[in-house]
């Protein structure tokens, strides 16, 4: 199955092996005709209107501003509704260095995102700590703190790279199982057991 998005030719994407592997894993035990069709419909909508959280700590955030402005214009792909509240956002573009003091705040923002949620690690600081890796006050990559879906390298990545990164995320969303997959709903009791109130 050739998974593509925004009328991009399949061969224009680089790591197609990954997405093929993902499709294989998901479809291993077959797909229900009815549920599968609904999945396709819902994923078509989800993958085409990804809402980012306005979250930037440093340089990459400015490129994210450029991405939103007229020249690179992410609005044409349906990603323009940058939300200031995590409860309304689909994914979080971690644009910038995450330092020790920011980690609890960052983790809380991630927890506040509504499921299904995704994370893009944008720029070398978010990926590994970047030029500040040896510092006493910098997290060495955000992968230890939250699960990451897409890595966008660069210091800072160009807006084009960011577009490519979000497209990769969009492709991933397109093949996911929605019902019984990412749309899991925890029972209230289960949730409270996992997150006890003291």
């Amino acid at each position, binding site marked *: 199955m050739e998974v593509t998005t925004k009328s991009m030719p399949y061969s224009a994407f680089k790591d197609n092996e990954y997405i093929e592997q993902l499709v294989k894993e998901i479809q291993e035990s077959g797909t229900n005709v009815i549920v599968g069709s609904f999945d396709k419909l819902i994923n078509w909508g989800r993958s085409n209107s990804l809402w980012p959280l*306005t979250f*930037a*700590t*440093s340089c990459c955030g400015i490129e994210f501003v*450029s991405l939103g402005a007229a020249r690179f214009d992410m609005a044409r792909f349906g990603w323009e509704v940058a939300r200031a509240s995590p409860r309304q956002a689909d994914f979080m573009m971690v644009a910038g260095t995450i330092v020790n*003091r920011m980690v609890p705040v960052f983790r809380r923002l991630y927890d506040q995102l509504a499921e299904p949620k995704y994370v893009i690690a944008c720029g070398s600081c978010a990926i590994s700590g970047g030029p500040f890796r040896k510092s006493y006050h910098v997290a060495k990559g955000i992968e230890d*703190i939250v699960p990451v879906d897409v890595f966008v390298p660069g210091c800072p990545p160009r807006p084009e790279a960011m577009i490519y990164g979000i497209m990769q995320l969009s492709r991933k969303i397109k093949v996911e199982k929605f019902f019984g997959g990412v749309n899991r709903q925890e029972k209230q009791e289960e949730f409270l057991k996992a997150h006890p109130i003291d």
Partner: protein
Amino acid sequence: MANLQEKIAKLSPAATFEIDGTGILQATVPAKEWHDLAKALRDDKETPMDYLVTIVGADWVESLGCIYYLMSTTDRSMCSVKVVAEGDRETPYIDSVSDLWHIAEIYEREVYDFFGIIFINNKDMRRLFLNIDWVGYPLRKDYDEDPAINPISIENERQSDNTTVYTKEDGKIVKKERAIFHHDDFVVNIGPQHPATHGVLRFRTAVDGETIKKIDVYMGYIHRGVEKLCESLQYPQTLHFLDRLDYFSGQVYHHGLCLLYEKALNIEVSRRAQVIRVMMDELSRIASHCLFMGTYCMDLGATTMLFYTLRVREQILDIFEKTCGARMTFNYACIGGVMQDIAPDFAADVKALLEVLPANIKEYNKIFTGNVIAKNRMEGVGVLSREDAISYDVTGPAGRASGWACDMRKLFPYSIYGELDFEQCVRPEGDSMARFKIHIDEIEQSAKILAQLVDNIPEGEYCVKVPKVVKLPKGQWFQLVEGCRGACGFYVESDGSTKPVRLKIAPPCLPLAGVVEHITTGNKIADLITIGGSLDYIVPDMDR
């Protein structure tokens, strides 16, 4: 300078003097006499030292101490005072000067955070960047960087409503607790994740209805420890961090630190490199001010402006990209000149920019500056007087909007600025509108500088030969440059090796955040966004 030396010698007979690498007089005075000397220097009738440029904390292994850089706004005379802390390494202490210069309170907190030097009588002796449970003082030479001591935690950091005050009673240091807020204050938290704080800055705001009673600024959510990192890198390697502090002034900061290194190494830079550097500085100033206008107007609800201003910014980024190969982190100026020669169509591109700029500025004024909503929201809001601007170290466009002529390009003309024809934009009002308008004025002046240079880029080499291994002689240097947001100072101390002993960056944005409380108190909470936006601080720059 001789007068200054006589003056200090008279006030503090035990003082010893030397001249540092940049020709600034340095007096070393005993800690006991420091406060009285500071008071006398600041209250001097003819040339009061009313501008505290920065406080450089330092660890000389056998002792800890501070170097205070002072400047007089009347005659631009500058001196530095070195004070070695009293007490042992456990509790070193110096008298606070926060009663003389308002900004000293924040600067002293920074020194306390990094070196653990206690300032007696400072009303707020908390850590500034690191959280309250942090173990050790990171910029001390014997700091243990083991991540096991200060692990990364996803648990919320502990927070205290109290601050510490140290006083001296009968020769003993007494530690006291002081509440930050009144016990029945209603405190609202704003940030660190908030679209209008321009980065990860956090305010705890005590409000009375809609009126702001007190603001407590929390920094350090993007503190990356650049100064400590620089101590383990060779001189040319330290440069690249400067692109990532105030990411709009990357070119200017590079220029500044290169000037300092070149002064220390006695390197004469070719005329061509100087012209290129100045042009790059001014281009980035225009790009930076354009982005300021866009984001500031967006904060106030005028989203359209962002698209209009970014149009010019993108054009400038294209010019940068052709020459430097990057849109933001250029790493362009290097010791001896610039990294590579300018692109063949650089001059043509700059000319094309200069052609479209006047029409753009006209457009900005038409859609925003004269807008009645903008006027109502900005005029008379957040007035900062000239005296307070000096006392709080508010330099750059914000300081000049308060009537303080503090442009380092004019005060201490570096590179070729002395021979260029441009004006220093000063406005007397001191409100948010003046701070906005001054950015437009400065774009015009930068364009004027570019117009003078674009046809006069001399031939020659773009980078002179420098030794493969850069070793600075023993000594210390201090260099001020005019960043896009104000005066940026660099202090370097060398022991003759390939790595700096201490590299201090005195950023313009730290005082800008320090003055927020003073300006906003008594205003409405909605004006916090207007005022904060007009100050135009960049959080990674203040946190470093």
